[in-house]
């Protein structure tokens, strides 16, 4: 039985809990240039993002939604990265980037939580069909 405390938990690392409890860029933008929402119907998680884009650069981004620590921390981390990024570069963000940033071992059961915000970015902002979604 694991008896770890928050500080040394291998999965619920402190920075993940911090992003979960104090999400960065949380909320809505007025008159966003792009807005999109996705849900993970299997667990009820929802993540939405609003973007302000100017000259091909993401000037501002906010996310909203509800869900588990992984989906919300992942969204929070992603927004931090996206702010100020060229759209072209944002397009290149992939699964591995997102998982790498989370920095923890994600089991198959939680992978969708971790990637929900990436799906919002991809489908919403770029209209890319997510080919290999829904592995479960």
């Amino acid at each position, binding site marked *: 039985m*694991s008896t*770890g405390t*928050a500080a040394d*938990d291998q999965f*619920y690392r402190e920075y993940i809990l911090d992003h979960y409890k104090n999400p960065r860029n949380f909320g809505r933008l007025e008159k966003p240039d792009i807005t999109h929402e996705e849900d993970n119907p299997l*667990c009820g998680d929802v993540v939405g993002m609003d973007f302000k884009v100017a000259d091909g650069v993401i000037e501002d981004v906010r996310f909203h939604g509800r*869900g*588990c*620590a992984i989906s919300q921390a992942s969204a929070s981390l992603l927004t931090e990265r996206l702010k100020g990024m060229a759209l072209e570069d944002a397009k290149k963000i992939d699964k591995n980037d997102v998982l790498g940033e989370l920095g923890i071992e994600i089991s198959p*059961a939680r992978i969708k939580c971790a990637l929900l915000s990436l799906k919002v970015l991809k489908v919403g902002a770029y209209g890319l069909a997510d080919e290999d979604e829904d592995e479960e």
Partner: protein
Amino acid sequence: MTTNGAGHLDVAAIRRDFPILESGIAYLDSANTSQRPRQVTGAMLDYFEHFNSNIHRAAYHIAEVATERYEGTREKVRAFINAASTKEIIYTRGTTEAINLVAYAWGRKNVHADDLIVLTILDHHSNIVPWQILAAANGARIEYVDIDERGELRLDQFHKLLEHSPKLVAFSQVSNALGTINPAREMVAAAKAAGATVLVDGAQGAPHQGVDVRALGCDFYAFSGHKMLGPTGAGVLYGRRELLEAMDPFQSGGDMIKTVRVEGTTYHDLPWKFEAGTQAIGEVIGLGAAVDYLAGLGMEAVREHEREITEYAYEALSDIDGLTLYGPPPSRRAGVISFSLAGIHPHDLATIADRDQVCLRAGHHCAMPLMTRLGVAATARASFYVYTQKDEVDRLVSSIKEAQRIFK
């Protein structure tokens, strides 16, 4: 066999029949699917290794044995639910297929434009979506009976709806999401008096409460073997003979026919009219062993054990700060407890519990309309069965506290 004294389950002895428990897991997800005892896998293996063959039209010995075991299970199931005849016992893959069979073979013919179908907000998707599809196809409309603040059906509403002479009333004997035990007998009687055909979803009823379909008085009763110690792949539709006789087949093909000619086809008698193609023979045989096992324990003892565990768990969980329990008090519910924790998503709780080998369900439990009604996206759910013991509940409590420590 594994009851001791006055109908009490000998849980320690029972647990020895379940090899999976040796790994040390606390399996608290039995409402999802149960574990299977050696007796069940043994019966399947016996078929696969000793008389593996196709049934019916047997021309040799092992096929006769297979046929006997397959058809013998029908009598076991008949006795288990007290049906009038084995002709009323149709094998299906599970509850879902059983309900779909009724929706297609009875529903398409008997439910017409503007007919009313009464369901409840407590129901499982498998007892909602087939009726939604039927209603869309035939122009019928659906009303859902709501719940009160305790998670119990609003019977006043139910009776109101019956005044509109519904064609079909379908509801679950026990809610898989809240554990609510519905007053099925009273509801069936009222619905029958109102002229409705009545289907009871017994997926959570048959395994935990048991059923006497004749006393219940319903027209159809559906349940799944895999939730009652049986293997995956085998379940049952009970239907009153008169209705089954009047129905066209659902699936068709080998074995459900009498004669096939280019000009047309005549169908086999009940129950085979509804069993097209090679059936899940080994699984049905396993189901027979599961029924034997439960009958050996006695459903009364099963209920009593679950009541005890549920009360214990309910009390233990009630003591935890920030924990919200959904559904009725333990005396009025089956061995299912849904709850949520302030500030901790059910998925996160389940992940933390999993590290302690505590198997917990997190999600909408295939009851999204209910979740919407409760205003939550998901809950955590612990559910119990014959092999569940109190120390597994204690482990759940520890996992919850661990989660609270992490998320504090």
